[in-house]
Structures are given as structure tokens and as C-alpha cells.
């Protein structure tokens, strides 16, 4: 706690205002139960620390600074990355402090948060960084004691020479070690010897978060900076005229500037700008398609029927299979647009000067932020710095640099440092949304209820592919056709947590449930038959999934959920592979006084080795809550190029009372770790919808459930078991 006093907050403001180092957001706060009164400040540690590589520095005090290159938005990378480095280093975790690295494309290959890809990309690199430093520290100790390095061992930041009983701390040999040459090849630990990886380690920023320290982009402040807010055009429209007289009259407003299709109000603090923005009178005129959700519904239906489809995968002779089928099952599924709605609205600080740009704020991809600034200013990327603050959520929204671009525009026009803030209304109306999509599925069954033909046609928006054609059930069906029809919308769309699969998984897993029902087979058994077929005799070419891992999570799901054993519990099953991770889920519904009550969701995950069990549970539960919340309530509709829902009073997010119990289990498959930020979301809606069908024989084919009459009549209760 000693590193986290009230003075630090002032320091933050002061440091941020006076040094190029700017935002200083890392520190060590392992537990509020054990305050260390003699703790050095991180500045003091860094002043004397030796760099071993891009990831770590060690000070003579034995304090270790580990740099985390990837933006932290709640996926806990700022804790799990350093755990991997510290593991191979054999560090004393209580001496580790973590700093967010700035954008540095020379040092780091992938400073990006997206695609659940950080851990699989960096796993070996992080391990090598730790192992190499340990090698050098041991070599330095060996040299000092004039013994062979083979005779030395390490544990928790100390090097031991068993024969002589000598020991020495990493800090004491750090200076010597840093002068040695790193080896080209390095031996990594056997996983069974891991001491930090696989143990529950708490978020390294807990202390700052729970005391309200300034960590987030929106918290950034610099003496003399201006604030800005922006009025944006509806999708498909452009500015016709602007009357900013009333806005300019608001006390605290300095200027109103226009660039591209945006009007920015600029002033000395936020509140006057919120008022001024409402007083802007901006007229718009059509500049392309001005779209409404009602039109989309018709467009989807037309394109499903008559659209020009691109074949994504074709196995066997699909037409013949359907012609010969004993039974054909078909259904259409549709979802609406969704907003990302991270709790921290979009914001960024930009300071454009003659020959350089300084950028500070929340971004999932700092390299795109730099690129955006280079495009606006013409300044070379190497003269544009990007400091990454903690992100108050992202969900894919902060993969776009539109708001960085805006901050740069305003700073350039005002010739001053500017912090741009979006209101919640801006966030909902100026988004880059999960697009609406509609799917048509068709299944052909033979007389024994075997799946002999499968067709999927998706109509996606602004996406070359609304399907995942090499995923299950590809490989398990002899005759399979996957097609995509694209519709170009003027509404900006973007990756949204588990892009495509966030709804495709729901639609596919619900449809397979329909098919199993038509075939009079148990839904889990039905999947297992298909897996066995794909394993024994895989159909067609490329398959992205590992059948054994699908079987692994499915078997464990049946076992842990007591599948089909309790007649009072109506269950729904769903299994999906995305982002290199395998997840099966079972939702439990119990009937109480004639009404169904959702009690629990069992989640079985195979993400390879679990790096941090507490962090993993967070991602699993968070994914399930997110998947459930948006399946139940998420609904963004458009009228005249603008969303109808402009704040959380109309755009409903899931709340405390609406969440059932979530039990988590992990399959120990022995693989290297894969990501968890996204893959637990896709299967959730399907598991719940299938449980609802099992309990009530009502099939929900559209989201959000809350808008479907079949659902609202149910009065589904939610109770934690």
C-alpha cells in the first residue's frame, strides 16, 4: 500500500503535466494486508534497473519491472503476461511490478488486444524473455563465485550454490549479468515445475482500481489542455448547414470547429461542452444510403432468397442428399445490431506540434492510433508517440482509431493539447457496431435420423464472410454447402467480441438442437455421433477444429452437468470452437410453480494450460454473462441512419439480478495456452435457448429474446442455484 498513497495521485497529475514520460500507470500492490513501508517508488527502481530485454529490468534492490506491451481492457493480460515472464525467471512475485509499455514496434511484435490472440502469440516469447534473463543472472553468479553454472539453482529471485551454501539475490548480480551476452538458444522449464503459472494471481492493478487512482484515458489530465466533444453526422448523411451561435455563447466554450463531417465544440472543461453540443443546430442531407432497421429485415429476406451467394465450402452432392432425404429441417435465425458500449466512453488525448504528435489514451491497437495521426497530420510515424492507458472495456470498439483521428484533428486545428471525450449518446450513435445478420439453415436426415446433408446461407453486412465454413459441422456431414451473401451498409460495423461467432454459434447450436429433436435423438448424443464420424472419416478438405478437443469438452459437460439425469432439470447444450479454444455449455432450467427458472450454466473450457485460474474464471464468467445479456436484451435499431436507443435507459445491458450461477471447469488437454477473452461468449445463447426449448417447447430464433413474444410469455425467472 505504501506505493499507493494520496500523494501518488497528485504525482500522477504532476508527472503527466511535466514529463515526456507522462502517464505512469504501473505499480505493485499485491495485497492490502501486507503493507511494505520501505517500498521504493517505481521511478526509483527504474533509475537503477538494468534492462535485460524488452520485457524486463532488474534493479540492485532485487525489484523487477516487467513491461506488458498489450493494451489491458479487463482480459487481465497485465497480470498474466508478467506471470509467464516471472515463471521462467524464477522471480519472487512480490518483487515484481508491472508497467504498461508504450507503443514500440521495434521491441514488440504484436501490441494488440483482439482476437484472443495475445497469449498464443506471446507464450514462448515471454518464457524466453524470463529464461534468458535467468540464464544471465546465474552466469554472473557463477563467474563471481568461480563455479560452474550447472552447480547453481534458483528460486524466488535467489541463486543458490548448494555445495558451498552460498546464496545471492538477483539484484546483486543484475549489473554484472546485464553486461553478459544472451545465449542464442535457451532451455525452458518443464511445465510440471511451474510455480507461478497455474496458480491464482490477483490483478496487479487492484489497489489503484479500488481506490480510484487515475488509470483510464478519461482520467488523463494535463495542465493547459483543452477539452473537446464532437457532433457527428447520421450514417449515410453529410452536413448541409451549421448554426453554432448558441453553442458559442455557453460559458466555457472557446471555439467551434468543423472538419470532415464533424463539428467539434472546444472548451476548458467537459460540462459546458455537453450543454453546447445540444445547442448546435446542424442540418444534414443524404449522402448515400440512409438506412432503417425495418428496411434491413426486408433486405435480409430478399437476399436470402435471391442474393448472389459466394460459395465458401461445398462437400459432396448437396442437392442429391436433400432430394433423397427422409426428412428436411429448415429454420432462419436473425440478430440485431449491437453496440460495444464499454463503460468508459471513447476518448483520447492528442497534442499535435509542428513535427511531432503525442497520443495518450485507451486503444486496443496503438499502431492504428499512430497511423491515424500520421494520416491526419502527415507527420512521420516515428515522430508520433502512443502511450496506452488502461481501457475501461473495449469489446472490439477500440480496434478502430476513429476517435484518435478526431482528437488529432481538433488538436491540430486548435494548435493545442486536446482531450476528446465522447458522451454515452455519442458512443451509442457514433458506433461501429456488431452488424445485424440473418442465417438460413437446412438439414437433410435419412430414415435413421442421420444428418446426410447440411446447408447454411448467411447474409452478412460489410463482411466478406458471415460464416465459419471450416468449423464444425464441416467434416461430419457428407454433403455440405456453406454460402455467404454480403450486403454493404452505410452503417459502420466492426469486430464485436467474438466477431461473427457471437451470433453464428447461437444460430448453429440452436439449429442442431432442432435437428436432433427432429431426428428423435438426445442433443449431446447427436453431436457425439457427428464428432465420431468427423474423427473416423473426416469429410472434405480443411478443418479448423480438433475433433478430440470437441469430444473432450462435450464429455465433461455431460458429466459435470449431470446431463439428462434429473427429470426436474430441463437442460440445453451447446458446444463451440472459436479463437483456438473449445467451450461446451449446459444451461439448467427448473420449473417452479409452472414457470421456468434459469438457475445455472455449466461451462467446460479447453484453452490448453490455464495460466491464471482466477483470471480464467473471470473471462469465462464474463463471456457467459456478456453472451447471455446480449442474447436476452441487446438491441440496437436504426431509423433514418441513427440508432433509436441512445443511452442505457433504452439500450439494455444485463444487471446483477439477471445473472444465474455459472460453474466453471477446465479440460487439462496438455496444450499450450490459448486465449479466453472471446470463446466463452458464443455458446451461451444457444445453451439457454435450447434449455428454454427443452422446458417449454418454444424455439427462439431471433435475438434479443426480450423482443420475442414466445419468450416474454414465459416469464423466465432467473435464480442462482
Amino acid at each position, binding site marked *: 500500500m505504501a506505493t499507493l498513497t494520496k500523494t501518488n495521485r497528485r504525482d500522477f497529475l504532476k508527472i503527466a503535466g511535466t514529463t515526456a514520460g507522462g502517464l505512469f500507470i504501473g505499480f505493485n500492490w499485491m495485497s492490502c494486508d501486507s503493507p511494505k513501508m520501505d517500498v521504493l517508488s517505481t521511478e526509483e527502481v527504474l533509475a537503477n534497473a538494468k534492462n535485460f530485454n524488452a520485457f524486463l529490468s532488474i534493479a540492485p534492490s532485487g525489484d523487477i519491472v516487467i513491461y506488458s506491451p498489450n493494451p489491458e481492457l479487463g482480459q487481465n493480460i497485465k497480470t498474466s503476461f508478467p506471470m509467464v515472464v516471472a515463471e521462467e525467471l524464477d522471480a519472487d512475485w512480490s518483487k515484481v511490478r508491472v508497467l504498461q509499455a508504450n507503443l514500440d514496434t521495434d521491441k514488440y511484435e504484436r501490441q494488440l488486444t483482439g482476437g484472443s490472440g495475445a497469449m498464443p502469440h506471446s507464450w514462448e516469447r515471454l518464457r524466453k524473455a524470463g529464461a534468458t534473463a535467468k540464464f544471465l543472472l546465474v552466469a554472473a553468479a557463477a563467474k563471481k563465485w568461480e563455479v560452474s553454472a550447472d552447480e547453481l539453482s534458483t528460486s524466488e529471485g535467489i541463486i543458490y550454490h548448494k555445495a558451498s551454501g552460498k546464496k545471492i539475490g538477483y539484484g546483486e548480480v543484475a549489473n554484472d549479468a546485464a553486461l553478459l551476452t544472451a545465449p542464442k538458444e535457451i532451455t525452458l522449464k518443464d511445465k510440471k515445475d511451474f510455480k507461478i503459472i497455474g496458480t491464482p494471481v490477483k490483478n496487479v492493478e487492484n489497489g489503484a482500481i479500488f481506490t480510484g487512482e487515475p488509470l483510464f484515458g478519461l482520467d488523463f489530465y494535463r495542465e493547459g489542455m483543452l477539452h473537446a466533444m464532437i457532433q457527428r453526422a447520421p450514417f449515410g448523411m453529410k452536413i448541409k448547414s451549421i448554426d453554432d451561435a448558441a453553442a458559442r455563447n455557453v460559458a466555457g466554450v472557446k471555439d467551434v470547429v468543423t472538419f470532415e463531417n464533424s463539428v467539434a465544440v472546444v472548451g476548458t472543461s467537459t460540462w*459546458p461542452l455537453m450543454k453546447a453540443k445540444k445547442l448546435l443546430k446542424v442540418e444534414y442531407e443524404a449522402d448515400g444510403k440512409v438506412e432503417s432497421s425495418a428496411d434491413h429485415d426486408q433486405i435480409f429476406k430478399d437476399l436470402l432468397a435471391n442474393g448472389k451467394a459466394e460459395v465458401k465450402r461445398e462437400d459432396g452432392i448437396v442437392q442429391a442428399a436433400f432430394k433423397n432425404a427422409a426428412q428436411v429441417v429448415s429454420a432462419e435465425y436473425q440478430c440485431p445490431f449491437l453496440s460495444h458500449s464499454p463503460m468508459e466512453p471513447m476518448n483520447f488525448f492528442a497534442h499535435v506540434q509542428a513535427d511531432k504528435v503525442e497520443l495518450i489514451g485507451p486503444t486496443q491497437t496503438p499502431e492504428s492510433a499512430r497511423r491515424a495521426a500520421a494520416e491526419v497530420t502527415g507527420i512521420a510515424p516515428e515522430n508520433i508517440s502512443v502511450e496506452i492507458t488502461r481501457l475501461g*472495456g473495449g469489446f472490439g470498439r477500440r480496434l478502430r482509431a476513429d476517435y484518435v483521428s478526431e482528437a488529432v484533428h481538433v488538436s491540430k486545428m486548435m494548435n493545442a493539447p486536446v482531450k476528446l471525450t465522447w458522451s454515452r449518446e455519442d458512443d451509442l450513435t457514433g458506433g461501429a457496431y456488431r452488424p445485424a445478420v440473418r442465417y438460413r439453415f437446412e438439414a437433410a436426415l435419412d430414415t435413421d435420423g442421420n444428418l446426410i446433408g447440411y446447408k447454411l446461407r448467411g447474409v452478412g453486412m460489410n463482411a466478406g464472410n458471415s460464416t465459419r465454413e471450416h468449423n464444425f459441422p464441416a467434416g461430419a456431414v457428407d454433403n455440405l454447402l456453406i454460402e455467404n451473401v454480403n450486403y454493404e451498409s452505410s452503417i459502420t460495423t466492426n469486430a464485436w467480441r467474438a466477431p461473427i461467432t457471437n451470433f453464428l454459434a447461437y444460430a448453429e447450436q440452436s439449429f442442431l438442437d432442432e435437428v436432433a429433436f427432429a431426428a428423435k435423438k438426445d442433443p449431446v448424443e447427436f453431436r457425439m455421433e457427428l464428432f465420431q464420424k468427423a474423427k473416423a472419416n473426416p469429410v472434405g478438405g480443411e478443418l479448423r477444429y480438433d475433433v478430440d478437443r470437441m469430444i473432450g469438452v462435450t464429455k465433461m459437460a455431460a458429466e459435470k452437468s449431470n446431463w439428462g439425469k434429473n427429470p426436474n432439470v430441463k437442460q440445453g447444450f451447446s458446444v463451440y470452437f472459436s479463437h483456438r479454444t473449445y467451450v461446451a455449455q449446459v444451461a439448467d432450467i427448473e420449473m417452479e410453480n409452472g414457470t421456468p427458472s434459469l438457475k445455472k450454466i455449466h461451462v467446460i473450457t479447453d484453452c490448453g494450460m490455464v495460466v491464471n485460474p482466477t483470471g480464467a474464471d473471470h473471462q469465462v464468467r464474463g463471456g457467459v454473462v456478456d453472451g447471455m445479456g446480449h442474447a436476452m436484451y441487446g438491441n440496437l435499431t436504426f431509423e433514418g441512419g441513427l440508432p433509436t436507443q441512445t443511452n442505457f435507459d433504452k439500450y439494455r445491458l444485463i444487471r446483477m439480478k439477471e445473472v444465474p450461477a455459472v460453474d466453471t471447469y477446465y479440460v487439462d488437454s496438455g496444450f499450450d495456452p490459448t486465449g479466453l477473452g472471446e470463446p466463452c461468449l458464443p455458446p451461451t445463447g444457444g445453451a439457454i435457448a435450447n434449455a428454454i426449448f427443452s422446458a417449454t417447447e418454444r424455439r427462439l430464433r431471433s435475438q434479443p429474446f426480450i423482443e420475442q413474444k414466445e419468450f416474454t410469455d414465459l416469464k423466465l425467472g432467473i435464480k442462482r442455484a
Partner: protein
Amino acid sequence: MAIINLKINGKAHSVDVEEDTPLLWVLRDHLGLVGTKYSCGVAQCGACTVHRNGEAMFSCITPAASLTEDEITTIEGLSKNGDHPVQKAWAEVDVAQCGYCQAGQIMNASAFLKKNPAPSMDEIDEAMNRNICRCGTYHKIREAVAMAAKSE
């Protein structure tokens, strides 16, 4: 513009702002107390929760000028060393994902537990239902409130 006198975290502050300025923006833009978060601005999400005379209040819709007679507590003033039982429970349970909503959650939970020191789980759910966590940390929030109730 008007001079508004406020008592925040036990200290007197005087700010010169427009009279309709919500407390949230006085805290964030004028006093550097940025632990209190802006998220919706319309009293829907609870990220801006502070205490007014010990009661949880949405600071985003409450004009600072209406609070001159009140004792205001923000997350920065909840405890001296981050060791309020609710903060300790939040750390022990490791509640945060992105963390943005958590100051508001803690302020709501601490005001709630003061009024109801031994709540049932249903009462916890009811009380915490006014705060949104977009990351979905609800299970851990619930666990932490229950833990703090036991420890107080």
C-alpha cells in the same frame, strides 16, 4: 458562473462553475478527483456513485450547487489507505476486470452495508442491481459484498 462551496472527503472546496454543473464534473474536471467515473450521465449505470451524507447518490445528475450543506464522500475518501472493509473484500475476491465501474460499485456497496450490515443474498442482488458492470463481474461483486458484510 457561481462560487460553490462543497465539503468533500472532509475537506472544504470552493469552485467557480456554472450553477447547473453536476457534481461529477466538478469532481473530475475541477478537483482532480477522477476516481468517480462518467459512463452514462443519466443515472442508469452507477459508475458515478458517491456518498451524500452516507447515502449512495448518482453524481452525474446532481448539481453541485444543491449539495453545499452536505458531506460528500468519493472513492478517494472512502478510507485513508484503501483499507475499507469493502475495498479489502474487493481485493481479496479479485473483483475487477476492466475496473472502470468498480469505484461506483464499491461506493454503492459500502453505503448499502452501512444501512444493512447483515444482508441476505437477495438483498445484495437488489442493492447492487443499480450498478452496471459491462465486463460481467457480477458473481464476484456479490461474493465481495457478502465477504465485506461478514468482516465488518
